[in-house]
């Protein structure tokens, strides 16, 4: 890549950043949606319970139909509120869970590979190779690699 190519890439980068659609974080939309979700989750059942009492306390079919509408509004509020809450509150948790899962899978794959090949960890093998080129004892290098592994997982 020549200097011209790089200048071109930087200019393209600047243009693309300028064209990005950014949301102002000051609006706190995510937090607002979570709060709305919680409000819906609380208000929805309240509406439904109130509707039951309204319907139970009258023999007037018109009032009972109104109560049914209020009850359905309550159910809708609870469902929508639940969805908003799950979207806002669980997204962060699920992100960490997924990252954790990826890490665990990586560690599991390392263990499996080591067990199948009957060798030490790749880091230890590399350290041993490096030690051989430096003229150190492989055991010494493996200890060093083991220390590194321990510090990584610790």
């Amino acid at each position, binding site marked *: *890549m020549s*200097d011209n*190519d*790089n*200048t071109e*890439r*930087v200019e*393209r*980068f*600047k243009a*693309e*950043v*300028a064209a*990005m*659609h*950014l*949301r*102002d*974080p*000051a609006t706190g939309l995510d937090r607002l949606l979570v709060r709305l979700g919680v409000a819906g989750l609380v208000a929805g059942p309240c509406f439904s319970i109130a509707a039951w009492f309204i319907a139970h306390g009258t023999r007037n079919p018109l009032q009972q139909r109104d109560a049914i509408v209020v009850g359905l509004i309550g159910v809708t509020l609870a469902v929508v509120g639940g969805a908003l809450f799950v979207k806002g509150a669980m997204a962060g948790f699920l992100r960490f869970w997924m990252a954790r899962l*990826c*890490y665990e*899978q*990586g560690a*599991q*794959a*390392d263990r*499996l*590979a080591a067990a199948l090949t009957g060798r030490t960890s*790749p*880091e230890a*093998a*590399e*350290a041993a*190779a*490096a030690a051989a*080129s430096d003229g150190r004892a492989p055991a010494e290098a493996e200890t060093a*690699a083991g220390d*590194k*592994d321990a510090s*990584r997982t610790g």
Partner: protein
Amino acid sequence: MTALGPAPAPAPPAGDPVPAPPLVELRGVRAAYGTIEVLHGVDLSLMPGEVLAVLGPNGAGKTTMLNVLAGLHPLSGGDVFVAGRRTNGASAADLARVGLCLVPEGRGIFPNLTVRENLRMAAHAGHDPRAVEEAAYERFPRLAQRRRQLAGTLSGGEQQMLALARGLATDPAVLVLDELSMGLAPLVVEELYGQVAELARRGVSILVVEQFARVVLGVADRAAIMLGGRVTDVGAPDEIESKLSAAYLGG
């Protein structure tokens, strides 16, 4: 916080050449994990085509700073400017799409996918997956021999090569590297930093966080020391090297 907008540029004194604006700039960046603040006002800038090394002991906040820059961690104060535009709150996906690429600590590859599949995952819209693969194999011939192997069964060095190749597949304008040398033998580290130096020669702006000071200072144009959530020193690599032992040992 006010509305998003361009960074206000201070007017240079009359007669002086106008310096190029930084490609990436952090101003008074604060970030926290819950109630614990780990970045206490970080100021740092990366110029176009520059390699900037950030050094510091464990717990200094280096990785958090990179995560904030890449849109993976929210700011609790301050501003991040990319190409002159405030990007507070921009998603990591959007930043990666425009060309700010983070190669995370711990490699971040998919262990249950093959090398080829990992590379293809990196090829987003507008990039030909075959071209991405060929470029990666040309840069790291060892990956070509392992193309059908599960990434989780590669050695540490090969995994890091794959992570770097996957990052480069997005044709980044800014490459952000976190602890490239973690858990690797010195020979492998030197090989990887050889590739970083090659990228720097091609003019990619690189911000690298590292504890392996000797190798990274050989590649960097500027270096910074980070301690306790703040950037305490920025300067030429030689100058920073002389201050490193005091920074690490508290002398």
